[in-house]
């Protein structure tokens, strides 16, 4: 502080005199144990800071990994690429499993109507959003008894033009629900189907193909041609194709073509084996 006024100059002079005497009197120092404790604390603080820094990076990496993996799983559920067809077929096959009679049988007409409409609506929603194996996955995940019953009712009933049966055997209990659903007239179901076809969504077609058989009225005990031969419901693609190939090998080309046409209706985008492509009716329908 440079003295800029007589007052400050006076302070400076007084300070010089007093300071010299004060220095002679006051030469106290902190004890060594305090010095050691404080310096130790200062070093300890640095060490703690390093430990904190060392924790930060692994913790941050671990957090990023956990969040990333979680997000990838969540994204996989939402945006699922087109699935391998084996899985799709597998999902369908799992839905073909015969349902217990008590689950498949509607408790009331309302329930029966609901069971007819709900799967179609749900499938429409599912197919519209995710035309993939998610259909099967979602059906598996929706494990409530009511939905299970609805799915069983929708899936266990055979399609009108279902291909001839593989070696699968339809349990009688699986046919009971379809037979016990006479409320929905075939005409109504077909009109509904037409309306949805006009929407132009291929996925909707698939949904309605699954819903229509369930709504189709049949006399109890009556069997379709396919049921009579042991086939009910959609069939997984790979076994189906093997069966068609077997028909070709046996020289039953007409039946094989009919089966292939049905197959193509159910699995429009499926890539056929080389041996079966020749049976395709038109190039427009050739597998992609």
């Amino acid at each position: 502080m440079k003295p800029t006024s007589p007052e400050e100059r006076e302070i400076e002079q007084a300070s010089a005199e007093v300071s010299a005497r004060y220095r002679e009197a006051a030469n106290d120092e902190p004890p060594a144990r305090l010095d050691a404790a404080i310096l130790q604390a200062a070093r300890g603080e640095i060490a703690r800071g390093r430990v904190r820094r060392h924790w930060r990076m692994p913790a941050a990496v671990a957090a990023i990994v956990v969040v990333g993996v979680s997000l990838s799983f969540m994204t996989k559920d939402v945006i699922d690429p087109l699935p391998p067809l084996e899985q799709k077929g597998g999902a369908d096959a799992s839905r073909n499993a015969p349902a217990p009679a008590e689950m498949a049988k509607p408790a009331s007409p309302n329930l029966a109507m609901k069971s007819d409409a709900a799967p179609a609506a749900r499938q429409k929603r599912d197919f519209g959003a995710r035309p993939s194996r998610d259909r099967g996955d979602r059906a598996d995940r929706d494990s409530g008894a009511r939905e299970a019953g609805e799915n069983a009712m929708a899936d266990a009933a055979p399609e009108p033009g279902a291909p001839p049966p593989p070696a699968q055997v339809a349990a009688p209990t699986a046919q009971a629900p379809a037979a016990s659903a006479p409320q929905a007239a075939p005409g109504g179901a077909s009109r509904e189907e037409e309306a949805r076809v006009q929407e132009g969504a291929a996925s909707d077609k698939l949904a309605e193909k699954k819903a229509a058989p369930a709504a189709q009225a049949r006399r109890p005990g009556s069997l379709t041609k396919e049921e009579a031969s042991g086939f009910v419901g959609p069939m997984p693609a790979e076994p189906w194709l093997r069966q068609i190939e077997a028909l070709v090998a046996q020289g039953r080309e007409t039946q094989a073509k009919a089966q292939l046409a049905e197959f193509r209706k159910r699995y429009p985008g499926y890539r056929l084996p080389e041996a079966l492509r020749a049976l395709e009716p038109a190039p427009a329908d050739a597998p992609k």
Partner: protein
Amino acid sequence: MPAPATGVRLAAEMGPTPDETLMLRYRDGDARAFEELYARHRGGLFRYVLRQVGFRAAADEVFQEVWMRIIAARARYRVEARFATFLYHVAHNCVMDHFRRKPPLQLLSFDDGPEEALQVPAPASEQPEKRAQRSQAARELLRALALLPDEQRDAFLLHEEGGLTLEEIAQVTGVGRETAKSRLRYALAKLRSELTGSGIEDEADVA
């Protein structure tokens, strides 16, 4: 350890001080920088605290608390003022906290009190006569210092031990520059009059 120069002269002549750099290096993990910083300020800060609180045991406690606060502030330290200003600001607050917990003794008697309260150590190698003379002079000055009003003593010690300028004293004590200057001026005047043997005036009007 060299004794710090007079505060006003130090502030005027030092210019940029590396104390802040040392503290920044300590913030970044350099323990030796803190050791150097501590070595520079330990004596002055200890004497500042000791003259304020009056007893060594209490001074030890407050002194350690000051440095612990400095250490704890390491990670968020920014150069916003001289390090000495920062350090003595913390010390001033710690002393105030100490007085809130334990009110200061008024008119501490150096003649009747324990020898420890004088805080005038002398080298063992000194002759007994010199030691006695030194001790007597120290008693007189320190007694005069202890009898100063708290604000004047605070201003004197900040100036003398911390090397703070009038502006910095004002900043640390939370008053205007003129008030700080007045307090320092009165403190110096009383101490000088004590030194010249004219006695200590009544300081009730000077706070």
